[in-house]
């Protein structure tokens, strides 16, 4: 139990780390934010896959990370940050900024709703991962280019 609390705390900390990094280039900041999202997602997926036991604290921490990250994530794409630092951002982001922001907002909203009605068991976490994963994919489909 203690280990899990530490894990949850680490997740929460990674959000803070993301905020502290704001002095860095936006390309780096947003990449760190996405990595934080991956870790948060990992907390949920590990429960679904049975690698870890269901733990409400972990679920809560993961969802909180997602909600908080999505609040500021779309602000990390100022003009001039289209290239550099090996960014995987697609030029389409700047062509369709409103749609890009809407997609980030949808993930934030879905994560908030889940936080309000916290998934109470492994099956519910599975359903949550499906919803959130679809939001990730919906944005990555158009706005991320792997290099």
């Amino acid at each position, binding site marked *: 139990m203690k280990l899990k609390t530490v894990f949850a705390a680490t997740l929460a900390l990674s959000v803070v780390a993301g905020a502290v990094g704001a002095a860095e280039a936006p390309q780096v900041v947003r990449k760190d934010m996405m990595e934080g999202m991956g870790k948060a997602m990992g907390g949920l997926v590990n429960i679904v896959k049975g690698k870890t036991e269901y733990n409400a604290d972990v679920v809560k921490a993961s969802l909180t990370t997602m909600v908080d990250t999505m609040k500021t994530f779309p602000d990390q794409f100022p003009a001039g940050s289209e290239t550099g630092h090996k960014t995987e951002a697609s030029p389409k982001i700047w062509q369709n900024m409103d749609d890009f922001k809407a997609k980030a907002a949808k993930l934030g909203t879905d994560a908030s709703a889940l936080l309000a009605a916290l998934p109470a068991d492994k099956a519910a976490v599975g359903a949550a991962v499906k919803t959130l994963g679809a939001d990730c994919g919906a944005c990555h489909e158009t706005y991320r*280019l792997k290099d």
Partner: protein
Amino acid sequence: MASLFGKILGGLALAAAAGGAVFWFITAPKPLPESAFAGLSIPDTVNGERLFWAGGCVSCHAPKGAAEKGDLTLSGGEPLKTPFGTFYPPNITADPDAGIGSWSLAQFGNAMLRGVDDEGEHLYPAFPYGSYSRMKPQDIADLFEFLKTLPKSNKASAEHALAFPYSIRRLLGGWQFLYLNAKPRVELASVDEKVARGQYLVEGPGHCGECHTPRDSMGGFLSGKWLAGAPNPEGGKGRIPNITPGGELASWSETDIASYLETGMTPDFDSVGGSMVEVQKNMAHLPASDREAIAAYLKAIPAVK
């Protein structure tokens, strides 16, 4: 002197005629006879649906986002922009005028396996018959029957907008002569039932190589580079990953690959992106055994660095 000149001229004319005849023969559409699709079992629409998802028909032949809303009307899809021009995926619903409702099984089969349409003309390989050519006639029949169960649409298909000389359909016969066959893409040392199923799905209906294999200037696959990754087909930034055991999937287990195809989540909790999003959604409809077979095959093919 004059006679020598005459001989040369005559020789050239003869060579041109012979060349023309060879050209004419090579570029002629070569459909399979009706008998190739005779004597099959009664079509099984359950298996047909499985091939429908493996092939991802809906991703090109339906308007964007329709499939997510549960609308499988294959009335034609988003324009496909390529270096050769813009292709407009046609209406393939069972509407007899706007779609393929009046086609016979042999006509459908020839489109899938030989790239020849109902009027005997070449189809452009943007429709990936270069992969579908590996499909079994029974699977073609099952898929055809399943497509007939989907809603009809009378929406007319748009003409492709291609640059010269790509606009000349006859030339596609040359492309087919060079690249169209039903041979395996790779020779595998030992193939159990699972890997064989994966090979069929990946090389045939799944047409994975169409994006994941690099091409030469004429659009043929580079040899020795099967599934080794390629530039973004739409041009510009980004690339399609190497999915051989020597590429990005090197550290993925078979379970990781199968799970990715089911959920869209990578082993390090990143999500699927780009055009693979549509593909993954289609693959999620397959039975787990098919996704596992694909994973087993991807682990069995030659590693390309």
